[in-house]
């Protein structure tokens, strides 16, 4: 059994990440976080919104993922994300502006549909802020 997992994250806009890692934790759409270690049984599931954590040489790193699919094999994790960003791709100012906008929309929301939309926007901006270690992202 190999000791490392080949983690690959791709989106329709760009390949985001590819490396050998020791462990992966990612959010699923239906069942919370999954933690994957080498030798995991083949698995296919839908990815949720949140931070994907991976461990490299004892260090914990993370990238954002928003929806899509994950395929797990004994020595690989392939994430076909709808959207995903590494830390250096996150625009802090944009995320903060988007959070303010979402909060405003949430207050003004009339229908449940508007409400859900605004909430989704707010969640996405909070995930980005949390990823970048911004104070507003804490307590998420």
């Amino acid at each position, binding site marked *: 059994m190999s000791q490392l997992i080949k983690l690959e994250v*791709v989106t329709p806009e760009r390949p985001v990440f590819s490396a050998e890692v020791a462990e992966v934790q990612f959010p699923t759409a239906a069942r919370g976080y999954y933690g994957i270690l080498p030798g995991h049984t*083949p*698995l*296919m*599931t839908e990815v949720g919104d949140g931070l994907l954590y991976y461990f490299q040489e004892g260090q914990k790193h993370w990238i954002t993922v928003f929806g899509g*699919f994950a395929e797990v094999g004994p020595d690989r994790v392939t994430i076909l994300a709808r959207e995903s960003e590494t830390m250096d791709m996150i625009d802090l100012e944009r995320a903060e502006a988007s959070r303010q906008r979402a909060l405003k929309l949430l207050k003004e929301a009339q229908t449940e549909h508007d409400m859900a939309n605004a909430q989704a926007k707010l969640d996405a901006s909070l995930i980005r802020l949390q990823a970048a270690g911004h104070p507003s992202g804490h307590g998420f």
Partner: protein
Amino acid sequence: MAGLQDIRRRIRSVKNTQQVTKAMKMISAVKLRKSQERLVALRPYASKMMEVVRRVVGRIRGDSEIQPGPAAQAFLSPREEKRIRVVLVASDKGLCGGFNANVLKAATAFVSECQAEIVHVDVIGKRAAEWAKKRRLVPAGEYLNIPLAGFQRVVTEISQGASEQYHAGEIDALYVIYNYFNSAVAQTPTVFRVFPMAMDRTHEGRDAMEVPHLLEPDPNSVLETLLPRFVETELLRNLLESSASEHGARMAAMDKASNNAGEMIAKLTLTMNKIRQASITNQIIEIVSGANA
């Protein structure tokens, strides 16, 4: 000296044409860059998606415990190909070298060799529509002058329609005929079957150690979102391949046209100078012989 006048007029005309072809070449270069950027960005995602879907489908096909839903049926329970749907992708405009001719030739060959009945044709681009009309294939879907931003809508429409048709037993396979983008100057006409998926030994139980995937939370909810997404991704890629190919082909054709115009201008200018020189020489001879007399 009527010859001289004529040649001057021709040079002017060729120069005008050259300006047009040069402008078209530059416009195509810009459009090529846009299409190519999106295509190159999508390709890794599409190929990973293909790899994953092949692996998952290859291992769970024939698994009696899974009752495939409407979208998954086309992948999991393939039927004999009797009726098929074909999507033909060409361009709206001409002046792009062999771009349309090549893909339409491939389409003609496909239609004449095809054993199954073609029950549904989608044409993308005016040239594809004209081709279908000539062959009395009535296109059920006609998409003309679709901008890059409109691709997603076309793709969703075809993907949803096709999987419903498969589910209803109206079609047994979905094909796309398009130009594959090798590089800005090279395209390959390609016939691609989206579903049922072609499986070879490398994908079917390649590794006996590997067991079928767990599909969580349950097989249907995963497959019913994954497989439509796969069909859409492939169709979108095919449209982008064709779009990038079209602009590449047009750029190459217009570059060649501009060069040819340049050559023609050089030749005409040379002829013009020769005639002018000849007339001057004649006049000098006349003057000299007149003075001598």
